């Protein structure tokens, strides 16, 4: 099925995108829907993008639900593993 649901979040940072070039990302879109490439019926998809630079300024990730949860756990663990003053603000 197509879920259509899209969760959006502002982000600040950089990503390595088309042609191996780094670019500043400003927007994230997260949705659980059909993947373009991953061999699964549905995946947790993350688009890290810079819409001001056009639709091709995007890094796309498609993860199975299980691996997406593992990624969330890993991100939280990495953030928790350092002194809070490093991750404040």
């Amino acid at each position, binding site marked *: *099925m*197509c*879920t*259509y*649901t*899209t969760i*959006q979040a502002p982000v600040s940072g950089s990503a390595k995108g088309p042609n191996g070039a780094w670019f500043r990302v400003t*927007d994230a*879109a997260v*949705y659980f829907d*059909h993947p*373009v490439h991953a*061999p*699964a*019926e549905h995946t947790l998809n993350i*688009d890290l*993008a810079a*819409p001001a630079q*056009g*639709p*091709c300024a*995007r890094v*796309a990730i498609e993860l199975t639900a299980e691996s997406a949860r593992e990624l969330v756990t890993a991100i939280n663990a990495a953030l928790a593993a350092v002194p809070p003053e490093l991750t404040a603000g």
Partner: protein
Amino acid sequence: MSGELSATTLEIAGDGGEPIEAYYARPEDGRPRGGVVVIHHMPGYDRATKEMVRRFAELGYDAICPNLYSRQAPGADPSDAAAAVRAQGGITDAQLVGDVAGAAAYLRSRSTSNGRVGVIGHCSGGRQAVLAACEVELDAAVDCYGAYVTGTVPPDWPLKITNLVDQLPSLRCPLLGMFGNDDKFPTPEQVDELEAILQREGKTYEFHRYDGAGHAFFAVDRPSYRVEAANDGWERIAAFFGTHLSASGS
């Protein structure tokens, strides 16, 4: 039929006369024939959709797929274009109707046209095919598992759509619907609701529902592909268009 066909990318007049990109395929013989507008699914104007356009040419039709994301992401990779449009909440129904009308007009302007044009869409394109069949002068429509033709669109739904219950009395042409009984978008109950409305309104329709199939069972490049349902579905499509898009079509 020689079996020869050609395919190309061209520009047509879309909604409001605005130029948009389209993928067009046609048989190489000069016989009069019907046309098919292929509405691409939400993932975009992609290779799988273009393969369908060529398949309709192989079946003997002039076929065209307007790039519904031409305005938002001209020239972009289909997956990038789809992501950009998704983030913007999709395209409007008004734009879709205008683009399909432009594509149908292009097909009817071909020297080989017999004047009859059908429309087909899968997934989000299934709903859009029904919408187009309510708003545009078309001769046949095929809805492959389009969600929210009926049913209630959740208030926080990210796409700018409504269901089509109010438009269905205006359906202008016969409708072929194909659905997987394991689908959640649309559910079998929503398909029942659509069928009840079509019956009540005295519309000509033909539905086929497949056990063991869910959403996107026609998609050969996805795990959802169900060969038996898809093969039967293609035969139904060929017969349906053969009936309604021939010069003597009813």
